[in-house]
């Protein structure tokens, strides 16, 4: 028994740890790497549970974006007659639904993730950053389902994307950073001030109207466009449309850069605030 474990013990015996007040552990980021499997398992658990519990799990993943798309197409495309940049209106809406659904569910779930996993937080040590990160990752499954629907929709309208579609992973990365950054921040605040859970549904609901989901951001008057791009999701959604719709779609680059910068700043501030508060989590949760 002892001999076969000699190798693992040999490695671990090197680990020297000092536990002291105010010391953010020097090997935090290395720990994060060591706990990558836990990250993988937590994401896997959440995916399994989500699709086991709801009888119509996958159907729900299809239905939700589809219904929203239909409603938005009717309201913005047919009733308000907003311009569609030369692509079928449903495709225009759906290209934006992809990142928006991902963002809104990720934000909702990650901002609650510390509370829902409170039991683990008070019983076991691991880098707590894993919890909200895996809550975001789980939504990739829904994203992939939606992506397939988009493919079907584009085939229906005989719409062929061009080479720009290859840039999609980059914009998806940006959507991840935006939802993870804001989600982490709200999740941390939520541990300390429990009433932040009421803020999240508001952000999600409000965000749907101030982000160009149901309409193209080109309908925003030119002089307001830069200001409009402070909303990180404007950049992400524009990026998605640019990559998927191709052709005529033009990108408003100054706005995109601003969105990207806001995303990055929010993310960095969130990580900093989280790291400062993390050590006290077990005492206050």
């Amino acid at each position, binding site marked *: 028994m002892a001999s076969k*474990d000699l190798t693992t013990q040999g490695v671990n015996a090197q680990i020297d*740890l000092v*536990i002291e*007040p105010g010391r953010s552990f020097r090997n935090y980021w290395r720990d994060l790497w060591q706990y990558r499997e836990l990250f993988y398992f937590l994401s896997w658990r959440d995916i399994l549970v989500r699709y086991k519990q709801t009888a119509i799990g996958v159907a729900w993943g299809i239905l939700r974006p589809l219904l929203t798309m239909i409603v938005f197409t009717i309201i913005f495309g047919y009733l308000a007659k907003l311009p569609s940049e030369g692509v079928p209106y449903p495709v225009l809406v759906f290209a934006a639904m992809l990142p928006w659904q991902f963002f809104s569910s990720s934000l909702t779930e990650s901002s609650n993730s510390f509370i829902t996993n409170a039991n683990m937080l008070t019983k076991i040590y691991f880098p707590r950053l894993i919890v909200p990160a895996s809550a975001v990752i789980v939504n990739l499954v829904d994203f992939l389902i939606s992506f397939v629907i988009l493919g079907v929709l584009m085939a229906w309208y005989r719409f062929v994307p061009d080479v720009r579609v290859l840039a999609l992973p980059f914009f998806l990365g940006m959507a991840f950073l935006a939802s993870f950054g804001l989600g982490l921040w709200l999740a941390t605040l939520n541990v300390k001030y429990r009433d*932040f859970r009421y803020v999240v549904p508001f952000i999600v609901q409000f965000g749907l109207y101030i982000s160009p989901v149901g309409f193209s951001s080109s309908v925003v008057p030119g002089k307001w466009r830069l200001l409009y791009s402070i909303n990180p999701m404007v950049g992400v959604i524009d990026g998605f449309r640019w990559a998927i719709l191709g052709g005529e779609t033009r990108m408003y680059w100054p706005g995109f850069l601003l969105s990207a910068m806001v995303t990055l700043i929010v993310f960095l501030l969130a990580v900093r605030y989280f790291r400062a508060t993390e050590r006290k989590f077990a005492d206050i*949760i």
Partner: protein
Amino acid sequence: MITVEGLGKKYMLSHQRREPYIALRDVMAEKARRLARRLAHPFSGTESLMADPGFEEFWALREVSFDVEPGDRVGIIGRNGAGKSTLLKILSRITEPTEGRIRLRGRVASLLEVGTGFHPELTGRENIFLNGAVLGMTKAEIRKKFDEIVDFAEVEKFLDTPVKRYSSGMYVRLAFAVAAHLEPEILVVDEVLAVGDAAFQRKCLGKMEDVASQEGRTVLFVSHNMAAIQTLCRRAIWLDGGRVEQDGESDSVVNAYGKHLQNTNGFTASLTSLDGRIKVEQIRLMDGEGRATSVCSPGSPVTIEIRYRAEQPVRLPYLWIGIRSQFGSLFAANMLLDGARPGVLEGCGTIRCTFHSLPLLPNQMYRVMFGGREADGLSMLFKATEVTHFIVAGSAEEMGLKGEHADSIMGQSAPVLLPYTWELPDGRTVPVNPFLQVQR
């Protein structure tokens, strides 16, 4: 291996709130109130504004220092609230100390609860992997140990059943089995053995002994089970009020702790009924001679005395007292069932309840539960709460148990003992009389 120097942990206790977290709403309201106060009295000193009567400092641990050598097995004992769990939480990096430091070498695995991260919807197989990962095992390690874990837990047939359909015994067995197959250099265990049936507890203790002795692991073990501490640990640290009271060989520390419990009167904090009309000022345990105690001997009487003060008359209340062990509820005395209810409680008074002969095994800790309702039983006076605890001291032989290892096994067996008789195939009749000592 582990060096603990001047460790301390301070908590801020709030007198108004029960939850540690706060609502932003309250913070903003408080800020606004202070601002208003400042505007109203612009020339008063700042001290009055700073003093916050709603908070009180509480040191859960203070100036705790000790060293642990590699391969040591150290038991940590002390009453509830002595700081044992806080110490384990700091050691496992769940919470941060306020002062002092710990230096340690090696991977730490902490078992503060069995089945952390278990999800009821997932199958046994899925939960083994999940729980293993939560405890810090890699996928490869879990795979290697998978069969051993399943074997130890005895759940082969139910591997693909969601654990929500498991019996509580199976659930605990599976959870402990995963934890027992961890291979850290330092294993930190909180009272997880206080679950499962006696046979499984014995198996767990045996496994922990193996882990410590054959594989040379360092084990820190918190328990109220003195017998388990004495079997498993060579050394014990007794914590009291957040400080190290005694540190030394486990037998002598356990004895000193037992003596100490005998001399304290089992006083507990006062309880106020939910509606505030009646207050329990003291609950204490007394031995046959009426002396306050928290150590009893098997077969001897124990009296539980409740001193109350009723601010307003309470009509037809009924109170109950229950005795629990690590196995759950053992027995209770309930005024409603017994038809022994006071008509009305007014002013100050005492109520006593005597169990004439405790049929309880020694070397275990028992908790005294207390609760009460009024009149029709619909309005609750006191929610069920643990009010005090006691230890039964004695040896197996006094109980009429003469078998090999009786003393060490006793701490893990079902604790209530009644007289019985064995009739063996060789014609012998062996009466087991737990109260031999008392009857004589």
